[in-house]
């Protein structure tokens, strides 16, 4: 069987099949990205926080724009070479196209990686408005020494065992309670056992016993006797925590629960049969369950099935000896108090929550949200900012580098305001309320001296990251520059995240839309790569067919390029 119009065009439409197909597919792609772009608009227009503008490093995006445009040209050259039956040229142009795709993805990877390592923290603490300021930077590393969180200064040790990013929550656990109806403890149990190693014993606090079903139904034994029987023992007190042990108890619990529910269901069904006989179908209404006759019957039922219940305990507790300091990600702990935390799967850890500050090098301070809130509430923004924890705390050396940096910023802002006034302009919110990473570098270089900053600003001698400054290629470079160090106590940590989709809707749409675009680049490159590396056979037998395929792949490639041409200004420049 041959499908017509694979190679040659149908005369009335003037198109071969796959060309129709790709245009239709691209139409659907337009609505796919249209949905995402309208999502961007919606989120930006209705954002209840200051939308980040020009928050991304422009250079990688700009290079990527030219790389993709270039590859769109070379893919056309590759197609033209095929049309002219010049295989060698086709190979060269297609290889360049693929190299461009690879370069695009590498740059994208560098950009993403920078974001994945860039921490942001909303500060909690005193102040008249809800937003208390944001600190951005790189999280340092820490370890537990003498039962306390201690920063690791030596960068070479960052990947050693027992060293972890200093944004974790530490719990000195003495007791763990698992909920058996939730058979998904595996992830946390593995983590706990890994952290416990061989030095800690995590053992079952008391026997886990479930009455034996057969013994129960034989009768003659009360509940105490049933539980005392050897057959009731599922796990001994003192058994060490393991996934297998938990699973065994979970199975017994669920089996017992099935057994109990089964019996209760039978009793309930029998009571319904009874009441139907008693009252007749016509006299039944849904209110019947509220009537005394029904309530009496159910009471009697309960008396009858009560002794038949296995009633397995739904929770098991393990003792940790000696108490183990667990290091957990904040996202795993939706709620915690001083004495206990609850993991996402309802596992409860009792003990003591230890001081768990976030330790980081700060490359940006952002009070825009504070200012926005203050203005909305009729408060002078600077008044709300001044009392923020960021500017009022005292660090372990008795100082506050962030306060100093902010004073430098004020000095720069003074200069900037004076400069702009001459042009009849005023500083933007970004100018006023945000200290950016390159500012931070400039102030550090001037020993955080506001007067020196004011002077340097006047002489245009402040460090300023320009478009082609490779040191700040992907943003704040913590290997290259020094940034102020801060320890944020856990009680002053509000919402925190790396600059990933979680941080805000801007990064959410940025990652989603560029990620999906990246997948399109990879998909397109795979298809074009297939033609390059495996196309020779088809070229020899039916070169026009291969040319058609490359043409269709090229159309897709142009679309991918076009999407980026929209994305670049929207995400990087606006």
């Amino acid at each position, binding site marked *: 069987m041959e499908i*017509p119009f694979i190679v040659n065009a149908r005369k*009335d439409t003037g198109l071969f099949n796959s060309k129709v197909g790709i245009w239709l597919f691209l139409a659907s792609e337009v609505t796919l990205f249209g949905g995402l772009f309208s999502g961007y608009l919606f989120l930006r227009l209705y954002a209840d*926080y200051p939308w980040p503008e020009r928050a991304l490093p422009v250079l990688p995006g700009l290079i990527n724009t030219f790389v993709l445009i270039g590859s769109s040209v070379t893919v056309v050259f590759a197609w033209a070479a095929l049309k002219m039956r010049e295989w060698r040229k086709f190979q060269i142009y297609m290889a360049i196209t693929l190299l461009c795709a690879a370069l695009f993805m590498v740059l994208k990877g560098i950009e993403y990686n920078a974001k994945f390592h860039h921490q942001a923290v909303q500060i909690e603490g005193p102040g008249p408005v809800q937003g208390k300021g944001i600190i951005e930077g790189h999280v340092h590393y820490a370890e537990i020494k003498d039962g306390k969180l201690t920063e690791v200064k030596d960068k070479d040790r960052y990947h050693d065992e027992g060293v972890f990013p200093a944004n974790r929550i530490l719990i000195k656990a003495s007791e763990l309670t698992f909920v058996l109806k939730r058979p998904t403890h595996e992830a946390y149990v593995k983590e706990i056992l890994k952290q416990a190693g061989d030095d800690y014993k995590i053992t079952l606090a008391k026997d886990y016993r479930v009455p034996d079903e057969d013994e129960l139904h034989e009768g003659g034994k009360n509940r105490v006797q049933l539980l005392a029987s050897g057959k009731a023992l599922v796990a001994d007190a003192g058994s060490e925590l393991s996934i297998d042990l938990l699973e065994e108890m979970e199975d017994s619990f669920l089996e017992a629960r099935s057994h109990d529910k089964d019996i209760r269901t039978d009793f309930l069904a029998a009571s319904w049969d009874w009441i139907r006989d008693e009252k007749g179908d016509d006299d039944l209404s849904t209110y019947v369950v509220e009537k005394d006759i029904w309530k009496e019957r159910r009471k009697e039922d309960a008396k009858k099935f009560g002794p038949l219940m296995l009633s397995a305990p739904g929770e098991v507790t393990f003792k940790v000896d000696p108490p183990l300091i667990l290091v957990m990600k904040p996202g795993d702990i939706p*709620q915690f108090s001083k004495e206990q935390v609850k993991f*996402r799967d309802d596992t409860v850890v009792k003990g003591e929550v230890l001081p768990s500050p976030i330790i980081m090098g700060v490359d940006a301070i952002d009070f825009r949200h504070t200012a926005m809130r203050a203005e909305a509430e009729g408060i002078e923004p600077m008044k709300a900012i001044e009392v923020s924890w960021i500017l009022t705390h005292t660090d372990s050396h008795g100082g506050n580098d962030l306060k100093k940096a902010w004073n430098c910023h004020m000095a720069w802002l003074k200069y900037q305001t004076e400069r702009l006034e001459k042009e009849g302009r005023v500083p933007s919110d970004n100018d006023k309320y945000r200290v950016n990473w390159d500012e931070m570098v400039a102030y550090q270089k001037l020993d955080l001296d506001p007067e020196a900053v004011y002077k340097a600003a006047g002489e245009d001698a402040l460090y300023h990251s320009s478009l082609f400054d490779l040191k700040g290629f992907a943003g704040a470079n913590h290997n290259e520059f020094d940034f102020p160090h801060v320890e944020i106590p856990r009680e002053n940590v509000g919402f925190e995240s790396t600059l990933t989709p979680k941080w*805000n809707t801007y990064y*959410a749409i940025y990652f989603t839309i560029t990620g999906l675009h990246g997948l399109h680049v990879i998909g397109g490159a795979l298809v074009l790569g297939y033609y390059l590396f495996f196309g020779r056979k088809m070229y020899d037998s039916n070169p026009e067919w291969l040319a058609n395929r490359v043409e269709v792949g090229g159309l897709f490639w142009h679309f991918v390029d076009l999407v980026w041409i929209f994305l670049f200004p929207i995400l990087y420049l606006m």
Partner: protein
Amino acid sequence: MSADSQDHHEDHDHVLPFWKKYIFSTDHKTIGIQYGLSAGAFLLFGFFLMIVMRWSIAYPHEPIPGYLSWIFTDGWKARWLDDGMVTGETYNMFGAMHGTIMVFLGVVPLGFAAFGNYVTPLQIGAPDMAFPKLNMASYWAYLAGGLIMCMSFFMESGAAKSGWTNYSPLAGYADRQIVNQFLAGQTQWLIGLVLLITSSLLGSVNFVTTIIQLRAKGLTWMRLPFFVWAMLVTGFLLLLAFPPLEAAGIMQLMDRVTGSSFFMPSGLFSKEDGVLDISGSGSPLLFQHLFWFLGHPEVYVLLLPAIACVAEIIPCNTRKPLWGYKPMVWSIVALGFLSFVVWAHHMYLTGMGPVISTFFQTTTILISVPSVILLTSMIISLWGGSIRFTMPMIWAAAFLPMFGIGGLTGLPLAFNLADLHLHDTYYVIGHFHYVVAPGILFGLFAGVYHWYPKMTGRFMDNFLGHLHFWPSLICMNLLFFPMLTQGMAGFHRRWYNGGEGYIEKGTEGINVFGQTVAENISLNEVMTGAAIGLAIFQLPFLINMVVSYFWGKKITSDNPWDATTLEWATPTPPGHGNFTFDPAIYRGPYEYSRPDHDKDFFPQWEEPKRSIPAEEPSEKPDKETTEA
């Protein structure tokens, strides 16, 4: 296709191994049947979920009876039932999955993918779809998506439980306790959905390309059977409406897996977790817009294949042309366009503002015009025909009033003001179930009975057919009509106990719905009985499908209904490659009872005799369309 390639092809057909011929087949007919059987199985499963729900509605304090609960394991019952009774959470899970399965896994694949795949290439004289491998990929993506969604019933979280519309923030928050979010039912739903959308995109590209490119010579646009037009428009709807939902699905997936807040507003609080650890500032309304941008065209994706089947069956069984073929074609095209600008009539209650509501109210009223043209044309087509009440025709005839009720009950919902009262009540449920169940499903049943002889070479049994039809018709109405009454009385669609909690026994109560709920609550039992009856009377159909395949009455010609469209020109069942000759088309699709022709049907492919004058009203065969 040349005779040589056909021969080659038939040889090829014999050597295909079983798995290639029946499992990973690229033949559009096999794929159509695969879609049909899979969709049928999903429909039965979705129907089962609904019966369990209806049990809970009618008998909320009674354990599910053994004939429904045998399918559940003890462990499952222990976790999801409360002493054998359906819990609110389980009801929500079943409700969400009932809707999802019926729409995405049942009716759309049955109407568009199964019938479309089997019939479209045959009707346009094509050897197969334009991209056979893509066609196969489309089916397997669909099956994988469907199975992934359904398998989540066995997960610790259970299946998705936030309604078939999966509105955030509920859907963004549900199953948060699961540590690995990829193993949460709510996430699996999204993954399944992305696969289903991929499947339908591949399918729609294939359909539209096939119809544009592979029409036989002489088959000009206005000679296309109405069925093909419907598939073309449906293809475009799927192609352009589904991707925004895919965007929404991806964003919701991000919300669940990466903790983003696309659809999660600021300040969300839950009893378990306190203030949620999210950034907020997302827009739940955005999800609704993206969902309904697909959701409404999806209604027409459901409907058009059924109308398409009925529009083929009516002329064939009235032995007269389809009345108003051209207006019907233009109507369906207009319907396609308009269906993209009515979506927010599902959102009147979100408070989008009177201006937006008025706009969507207007477009919604506009879209009823082409719908009415379609239905009216088909009703007028009956007028003066010598109707053969064959099994397909009976189903098709029942489709007309049933779909009529479904359509007309939609009009009040189009109006913002009336919708404020009726939104989310059983009235809405009654309305769209009238459209989908006795409407669309009857149309599709008609299609099964109509094309079964082409697929198998045997007719379906008439007695079993009647035993299927009449009780189904009665049960459908007993099931869905009371919903309209209950809805007007204020019954909410998500009451898992049928409204029992709202009954007001005294006359002085403050609950304004209490009295009307008390008056109408007994209808719950009628509907539950009807649902069970409906299930029972699908058995004759299932038996018929199997029994007729082996022992049904054999057809005596390749064109057993004396029909005019091209699928009846193929051998029965058609082989791989479909046609044994190079088909050419000489006239329109519904040339029945022409006075200048000796038989009462004049097939599209039959060469005109020289003595017959120029073909009217059809256009001349297009020489241009021959193969290059």
